[in-house]
């Protein structure tokens, strides 16, 4: 994957980062319209878990972080989110918790609690054991 894909990865990475930029502007506009749930959904869609490139992951994390911090109604947000996004959201929550930044951690903890209620401990397990598709 890393070997022959060295050169291809770089190209691919640029394309992904460009996509993330477009996503970012879309999210900004959604947030201005007070639609934080939509914003988070957009941010989580097309998360690049299969890229090895750290820059893509960081770029996407910044976008997701922006949308996460804007969420006030957590229950509502989880209601609107499809079940398949629970695992990815959980991974981003753990990334947020690892930053150590107080407001981020507060927000992530609040969401973590509600998400665990819904998705169960299995969701946390999948997040911890998956060392290949990391965010």
């Amino acid at each position: 994957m890393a070997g022959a894909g060295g050169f291809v990865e770089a190209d691919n990475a640029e394309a992904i980062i460009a996509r993330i930029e477009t996503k970012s502007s879309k999210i900004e506009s959604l947030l201005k319209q007070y639609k934080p749930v939509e914003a988070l959904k957009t941010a989580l869609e097309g998360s690049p878990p299969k890229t090895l490139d750290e820059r893509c992951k960081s770029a996407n994390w910044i976008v997701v972080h922006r949308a996460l911090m804007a969420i006030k109604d957590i229950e509502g947000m989880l209601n609107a989110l499809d079940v398949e996004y629970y695992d990815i959201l959980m991974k981003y929550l753990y990334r947020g918790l690892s930053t150590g930044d107080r407001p981020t951690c507060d927000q992530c903890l609040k969401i973590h609690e509600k998400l665990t209620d819904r998705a169960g401990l299995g969701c946390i397990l999948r997040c911890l054991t998956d060392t290949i598709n990391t965010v």
Partner: protein
Amino acid sequence: MAVVDVHRFAESITCHAWSPDLSMVALCPNNNEVHIYKSSQDQWERLHVLEKHDQIVSGIDWSSKSNKIVTVSHDRNSYVWSLEGGEWVPTLVILRLNRAALCVQWSPKENKFAVGSGAKTVCICYYEQENNWWVSKLIRKRHESSVTSVAWHPNNILLATTSTDGKCRVFSTFIKGVDTKDPKAGSPAESKFGEQILQLDLSYSWTFGVKWSPSGNTLAYVGHSSMIYFVDDVGPSPLAQSVAFRDLPLRDVLFISEKMVIGVGYDSNPMVFAADDTGIWSFIRYIGEKKAESSGASYSSQFSEAFTKFYGQSKATTANEASESSKSRGGVHDNCINAIVSLSKAGSPKVMRFSTSGLDGKIAIWDLENMEEELGHQF
């Protein structure tokens, strides 16, 4: 509830196996011995203690036709025990392993047995009449890590293995002189010993507990990431499905019919999975009565304490789940269940009774006699 009998045999049970007439059970109480208990009038009486291994006995299997017990241990050895004059007499099997043996199973015809080991190999052992001993042939290729579980296909040749490298593989274990080539079935690939027929890369984490369905058409195994994998039409173009579920991971599975599987694991409560008419597998229910559905979090008291500490910082108030202890979750077992064994005749299409053993030292016997309605038509 479907539980017929529960008995605590020891502090903790590693593995267990039943005698052909289901009156005796051989178990390892988490040490280097194998204890054989017989049930008589609701009392369990210890009949034999088999002491030959130096380290923990990790696998026991009791053949139903030839009445032999095979045990494997972390001491890299295996013994085949035969009953002679009321005493169990061991025969050492030289496995040629340099790491612990982790699991063992007799083949359907009971002329071979397979041992999975931490040496990334699988040993297939067969009896050589001329020299009156058991010979072991190793499958050395392919596995990148410990082999956690092995399962024989009903045709006595194909063997499925799961490993901590996350993959499930199917091998051919055809041995000239022991197996007869089936003229109608099998491609040339199937008749070479150690040939890998199939590799499944569905899981990203350790895999355990592989089993074949009664007809040998479907394969099921679990991953440590709270997922269970089903593979239909095992062969050149298999149909694989990954089912993610809410709770803690499973350790072992059992097919109770062609379309229904019971999984046991860290939740201490067996889970039922079934395939609907279109062939899609999903989680149906816990086998015991489950209280309030996913609306309330059914944490055990242990977890809710931990979570209160964890969430305490963010000043969010959690509904107090401390009252709901793990026992009320339908709890027959108090701790992880690590083995599930069928109590029906080998090769029968439906399993009506099975037993589970776990780290709490209990063996529970479950009967599905009156549960046909509850479980649905797939049973």
